[in-house]
């Protein structure tokens, strides 16, 4: 498993439910509730963005504090992880050159490459962008659609996704449409339908390539 829970255990081992953590957790729940209430046309006169901002700030403060408390252990854990994941050849090379990267910057450079330039992060940002476009931007822009399609194609090429992944995403957006129409969110439903169509097109094209690749003539 790529993202194991050991790091989480290190950060939360001396966990205490202090006010900052409570604030972050409660704010997150308020934000979730307000978003859900907005979808169901209930208005409490509260701005959900404010609560999301408070959640981000308070959670950031709590996480920084927790990391500061357990800094040594985190560094040791990451260094061990890096050593175990380096190929034998690379270890030999670095040992030969006597240039094994042990500085904090080198370590966090590796962490950035290993954890942030990963498939999961790219996918998460991509789908957050799509969600942002569907739910928060009212106007439909061809440039945005084109940009996301190119991004999706690049992800498909880089991480070799199967065609059924695109089709599953398309089906998800297609399934979302009737519910949004029932909730009288016509604009959002229209955008979800656009994205369903786009993913379906990409998935079908990918499927044709797969069929061609797998069939022997």
């Amino acid at each position: 498993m790529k993202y194991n829970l050991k790091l989480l255990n290190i950060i939360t081992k001396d966990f205490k439910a202090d006010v900052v953590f409570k604030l972050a957790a409660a704010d997150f729940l308020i934000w979730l509730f307000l978003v859900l209430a907005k979808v169901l046309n209930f208005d409490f006169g509260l701005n959900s963005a404010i609560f999301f901002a408070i959640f981000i700030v308070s959670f950031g403060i709590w996480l920084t504090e927790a990391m500061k408390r357990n800094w040594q252990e985190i560094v040791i854990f990451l260094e061990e992880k890096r050593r175990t994941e380096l190929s034998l050849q690379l270890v030999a090379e670095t040992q030969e050159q006597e240039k094994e990267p042990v500085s904090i910057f080198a370590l966090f450079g590796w962490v950035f490459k290993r954890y942030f330039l990963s498939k999961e992060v790219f996918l998460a940002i991509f789908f957050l962008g799509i969600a942002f476009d569907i739910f928060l931007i009212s106007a439909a822009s061809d440039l945005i659609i084109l940009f996301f399609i190119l991004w999706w194609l690049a992800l498909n090429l880089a991480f070799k996704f199967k065609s059924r992944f695109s089709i599953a995403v398309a089906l998800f957006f297609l399934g979302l449409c009737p519910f949004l129409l029932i909730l009288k969110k016509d604009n959002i439903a229209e955008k979800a339908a656009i994205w369903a169509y786009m993913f379906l097109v990409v998935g079908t094209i990918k499927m044709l390539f797969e069929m061609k690749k797998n069939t022997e003539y």
Partner: protein
Amino acid sequence: MKKFRFLRSTVLPFLIFLISLIIFKAIIAGIIFVLIFKAVEVSFDLYISLKSEPRFEKWFSLLGDILIVLLLTFAVYNLFFSQAERLLVNVFFVVPKIPAIYSNLFFIIIFLLFLSFNWQKVKGKAFFGLLLVLEIAGAVVYLSCRKEKLSREYLPKIYRVSASEGYQGEKLEINGVNFYPSFKKGEVVLGEAGDLTISLWGENKIIGVIPVPAKFGTMDLVVKREDGITSNIIKFEIKDPGKLKK
């Protein structure tokens, strides 16, 4: 036991779906209530199976505290703010809308107040009973205020008149909401004195000239929209110019 499980997992959700379908007359409401019921059911099962585990104890305690704070905050907010908004916007016509900063600020203050309190000390049957009563009262107040707000949202309302008294021929400025645009002009009735001569008509502002009244005194000022719907009444006094000091 098997019968109870069948009752809980199949019959009860179906009944919830049917009842919400009858009450709200929408399939989506039924689906949402069934989903909420299922979420509560799963959470309850999870709680029962994990509550004896020592490693989850502190998380459950934390979750309990947060839920108490949230329930209390929303109950108090709905009880006070919804009523305050109703009184200021729809009863006394002080402002067309309370600025969002006040509602957010009020909510954050009571939220922080409740968050800073240690709820472990006061937990008990009486406390949870009180919490339930507060929550129900809050929900009832919120829903009734919301219903009233929605029904009055598009009615014409006068919030401010440039003067509470004046003489014939003087200009009078009326500020409010939902008067309709200038191409759907209505009329401003000043009791027995008749209509104001309109010099400007806008969605939120009307300027008119006070007519010559049959008799002087306090009268009801009302905006009558093009569709015949009238606004709230404002008392206005037309003074006698004969009594002006020479």
